[in-house]
Structures are given as C-alpha cells and as structure tokens.
C-alpha cells in the first residue's frame, strides 16, 4: 500500500499551510501580520511545518473498498496457509478472532479442537454441503413433512427443510444485518454457517452482495484501527492508531479522500480542539437546552424553595409552587406569609427571606447566563459558517467574473477559493473553542487559550468582511486577502497546536465535565 501517497493526497490542508508558511517566512512585513502575537514563537512553528505534521494532527491512511477487500483476502490466505485450512474456514476463524491474526494462530496451535469448536467449525470439513431427501423427516420449523421434502444440514446434523433454511438465512442477512456470525438454526447450536454452505443456499445475487457487504462491514467494525468515513455515499475506510483510551488527550481529526474531515474517535465532523467526551456532553446539553434555555431565562423564575421553573400565567403575585406547595411573592420572591396584608402591592424589597431567595435565583441564573454566553458564540460561528458557505458558492461565480473582467487566469483567482476554505475551517474550529471554554476550569493557561481564541476570531472576522466586497474591488484586494487568509490559517494552527500540546501533557488546561 502506497502509504506516503495516500497521506499526501489526503492532506490538502497541509499543502495549504505550507503555502501560508512560505508567505510568512518570506518576510514581507505586512502590517496585518506584524502584530504583537508574534511572541508565540513562529520559529518553532516553522520547524514543525517542515516535518509536515502539526502537533494537533495524527497519522492516518485512507483505503477504498477494494483495498479493504484485498486486506481481508490477504490475511485469509496467509492464515489459511499457516493453519492448513481452506479459505472459507480461515475466514470464519479470523472473524471469530476479530481479525487478531497472532492471537488466532497462537491459540490454534495451542488447542486446535477448541478453537475450531468455538468458531463454530467443529471437526474438519470432509464433505461438501448437499441437499438430501430424508425418509420420515418433519421440519422442526414449519412442521411440514412428506417424502419429497428437500432438506439441508451442516456437519452438526441439525436438519431443516431447504425453504426454512433459506428463509432463516435471508432473515438474518436482510433483517438483522448479520453475516459473519450467523449460527446454525438448530436450537442451542453455535456452529457458524460457513461461506460454502451459504453460497450453496443463498442463490439470489442481491442477497449475496448484501452478505459480502456485511462481511466487509464486520471487518472494519472489528478492527479498532479502522473506521468508515461517515460522509454520505462515501465507501472509504480510514486507518488510524489512536486508541479509545487516548481520546481525552488527543483529538484525532482525519481527512478522507472524499474531502470529509471527521473525528476518528467519534466519527462526528471535525471538532478540533475539543476532545470527544466534551463534544458529546456539549451536544447533549445543547440538545436539551438552547432555545428553551433562552425562553426560560426571559419568561420564568424559580421557586425559591425547590427551584422548579415557574411561568406566571395570571395577574396575582401570590404564587403557590405546584410541586412543593411553597407560597411566595412573584415580585420579591419572599415568603408569602411575611407579606402580612400588603398583598398585591409588594414593597418589601429589603426583607431577609426575599433577599436570600433573590440571591439564590441570581446564582442559578448566572450559571444559565454563562452557558448562554458560550452557546451563543458557538451557535453564531455555526451559523456564520453556513453563511460563509453560501458566499463560497457565490465565490465561484465571482471567480469566473473576475477572470473575464480582468483577464486573470484561473489559477490567479484561486485565492478566493483558498480564502473561503480557510474561513470554513477556522469557523469550525472557533465554534468548538467555545464549547471547549465552557468546560474549562480557570487558570493561567485558560487565559492563553482565550487570547488565542480572540486572535483567531479577529482574523476570521477580518477575512469574512472582505468577502462581502464587490467583484471589481476584489482584484486590488488580492494580496491583502491572501495575507489575511494565511494569517487566519496560521492563527488556527497556533491555537490548535497550543491546545493539543496542553491536552496531551495533561496539564495547564483542565477540563471539568461537571
């Protein structure tokens, strides 16, 4: 497998960063770039770029379906040769061992019979599968009998009529999506239906195709270092060495050949720099809250006793909490009993019970406000990324226009495309920095993180603004736009590298998934 090629072709982002680096290293002291942030240390940065891998990036490789099939076939052949088993048996053994070749061979050598038995192969294959008519036979599934009934059984001798056997396999493949581990239909029998028997019984091409597809799927699912690309209609598989236990420290974003960036850990869209666990928690929270939280914040108060959220639906200030039966005043949140006779005319602002209740309420609201602070920024970047994408679609039109108006070549107008892509990517990152920040415990490193966030945000907004300029202005802005584009990407890399490093070391940034 041509690993280097694979990697490079999947690294358009890489190329892009190298370009931006060139314009940086070139030393043209553009005022836009010459900001006080240079102290982050571009020197180390440059060194890293030369290695063509950033601190926040992970090694991975993309495979097409044929390559995945070939991988399986190679291993089946290899193991078959070593164990002296025919390919269909070797395939069953490998699937049973979840494609752990070494462990399979070792345990096979250790105790052949036991391995064969537990893989559902029983004693070695001697007879090819065949259909028989058996005298006095009654099918245990459909209860049909009769001398003409065609029957089938594997070596375990659990015999059923061919129709039922076929129906069983069809239902397993079609309804349950099973393939590698379909067991004999016999009660309590764990023998796996091998590929030869299956080929013999499943005659429809469509079903057989599905079977092969499912087999490949179990292969990818069984291998911890393989994942499907989740993009719709993409059939590629990505290989990456990052383990589940590394996920709190590493965010393994991979880039499929189809162009899709996704997280190898959780298969969601690229969510750098936030680790998978945080992302999951955040998404769950957003699903629960978001709009509802806004509404609650604007329209309700909490019962001072049990903190149930209450919406006032009548004019009277005398509230009785439906849950804890606490009676209080809607205006001052104080205990109703203390109101005496001054009902409907609350002027007891300084009363103690009311003060405490308001204080507790303020605290609870504060945590909501905090969440909304981060959520609004998160949602805003998501929204802006969508709008930027709309602009991207218009960009193509602009590019053609620009080509015609100015006589620039196609390659010369590519800067718009680069800018648009950079914008998308940076907004994606920014969006997740806000979810990330929500769970961040405050310390010195947090400040650095927020500075990085601020710098990237500023760079992004600057670039985004330029996009709205009219076509005739664009030509003169080309150099500035290219500079801003590379600056954005640079800022993004700095933020991601800093964060990745802090995460990996497990110090500095403290995530608190309260």
């Amino acid at each position, binding site marked *: 497998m041509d690993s280097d090629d694979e990697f490079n072709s999947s690294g358009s982002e890489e190329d892009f960063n190298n370009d931006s680096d060139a314009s940086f290293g070139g030393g043209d002291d553009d005022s836009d770039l010459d900001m006080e942030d240079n102290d982050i240390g571009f020197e180390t940065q440059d060194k890293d770029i030369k290695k063509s891998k950033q601190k926040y990036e992970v090694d991975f490789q993309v495979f097409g379906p044929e390559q995945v099939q070939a991988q399986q076939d190679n291993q089946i052949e290899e193991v078959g040769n070593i164990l002296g088993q025919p390919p269909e048996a070797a395939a069953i053994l490998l699937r049973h061992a979840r494609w752990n070749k070494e462990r399979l061979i070792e345990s096979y050598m250790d105790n052949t019979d036991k391995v064969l038995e537990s893989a559902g192969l029983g004693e070695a294959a001697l007879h090819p599968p065949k259909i028989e008519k058996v005298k006095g036979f009654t099918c245990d599934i*459909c209860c049909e009998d009769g001398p003409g009934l065609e029957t089938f059984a594997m070596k375990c001798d659990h015999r059923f009529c061919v129709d*039922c056997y076929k129906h069983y396999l069809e239902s397993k493949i079609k309804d349950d999506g099973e393939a590698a581990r379909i067991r004999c239909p016999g009660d309590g029998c764990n023998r796996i239906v091998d590929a030869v028997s299956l080929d013999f019984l499943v005659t429809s091409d469509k079903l057989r195709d599905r079977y092969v597809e499912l087999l490949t799927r179990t292969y990818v699912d069984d291998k911890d270092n393989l994942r499907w690309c989740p993009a719709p209609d993409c059939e590629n598989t990505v290989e990456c060495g990052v383990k589940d236990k590394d996920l709190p420290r590493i965010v393994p974003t991979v880039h499929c050949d189809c162009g899709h960036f996704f997280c190898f850990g959780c298969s969601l869209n690229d969510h750098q720099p936030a680790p998978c666990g945080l992302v999951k928690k955040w998404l769950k929270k957003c699903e629960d809250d978001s709009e509802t939280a806004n509404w609650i914040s604007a329209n309700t108060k909490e019962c001072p006793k049990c903190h149930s959220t209450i919406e006032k639906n009548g004019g009277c200030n005398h509230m009785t909490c439906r849950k804890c039966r606490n009676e209080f005043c809607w205006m001052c949140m104080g205990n109703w009993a203390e109101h005496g006779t001054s009902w409907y005319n609350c002027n007891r602002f300084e009363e103690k019970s009311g003060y405490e209740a308001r204080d507790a309420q303020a605290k609870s609201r504060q945590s909501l406000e905090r969440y909304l602070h981060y959520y609004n920024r998160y949602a805003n970047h998501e929204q802006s990324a969508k709008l930027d994408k709309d602009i991207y679609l218009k960009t193509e039109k602009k590019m053609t226009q620009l080509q015609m108006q100015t006589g620039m070549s196609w390659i010369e107008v590519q800067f718009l495309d680069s800018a648009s892509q950079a914008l998308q990517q940076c907004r994606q990152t920014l969006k997740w920095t806000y979810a990330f920040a929500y769970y961040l415990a405050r310390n010195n490193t947090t400040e650095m993180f927020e500075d990085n966030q601020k710098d990237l945000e500023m760079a992004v907004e600057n670039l985004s603004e330029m996009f709205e300029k009219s076509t005739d202005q664009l030509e003169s802005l080309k150099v500035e736009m290219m500079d801003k584009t590379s600056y954005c990407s640079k800022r993004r890399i700095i933020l991601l590298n800093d964060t990745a490093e802090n995460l990996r070391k497990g110090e500095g940034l403290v995530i608190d998934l309260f």
Partner: protein
Amino acid sequence: MAAARKRILKEYTECSNDTPPGMKINFDEQNMTEWEILMDGPEQSVYSGGHFKLRLTFPNEYPFKPPVVSFKTKIYHPNVSNDDKGSMCLGMLRPDAWKPPNKVISVLHLVRTLLIEPNVDDAIEASIASEFKDNKKGFEKTAKEWVKQYAK
C-alpha cells in the same frame, strides 16, 4: 404465513397437552397470532396468590422472529418493563438469541421460571434489579403490595 399457521396450531396442541402449572391459554382460531394467557403467581414466589394476564403475540415472520410476551397485569419485576407495555425481553425472547425451532412451550416455562427467580443480570428495570440485589426485603414488600393492588 401459511407455514406459520400450521406450526402455531401444532404448538397450541402441544401447549394444551402439557400446560405449565398454573397457566391457562385462551386460544382463538380466528386470531391465532394472539394468545391470551392467564397465569397464577407460582406458589414459591412473591407473586403467589396473584393472577396475571399475559399476551403472547406471534410476529408475521414467526417462527423466524421470536414471539412477543407482554404482561397486561402490572407486576413489580426486574425483567418486566414498568410501563403500559409490560414487555419481557430476555434469553430466548431476544431476536438475536431466538432460533426458529424454539417452541412457545419453552417460552411459557421461561416466564414461570423468571417469576420464581428473576434474572437481575439481564434486567430491563435497573432500579428494581438493584433493589432486588441490595434490599431483598424491600423488593419483596413492594412486589407483594403490587400483587394485592393489581393482580387480585
């Protein structure tokens, strides 16, 4: 379905010849795919004295898919869902464990066995299961109360 009819009929004959203790099957030839089962709480269990109504539904794909068991009478049990479905889904009743030659009679025996000895490791109601493990007395008390309240 024609094949299933033959099989269901045969299974009914089998079940009525050898009904598990304390059970009665109401079978309707017009609607063979739904059996109503009346069951007395087994004497050696906390459900003793209760009368439970169950429904056994045969799916269209029967016997390639397992029958569905649901308690129509409320019961306090780790393996019966505490909702209006009262479903039971473990062991051979799970689609991936069910084998086409498996018989309804075994399902009935399974249900009875589970009332005598709940399976806490494969519980549908986790809180009832942990109560069963950690506070058996409390579990038995509630289970008996429910029998009194719902299963008389």
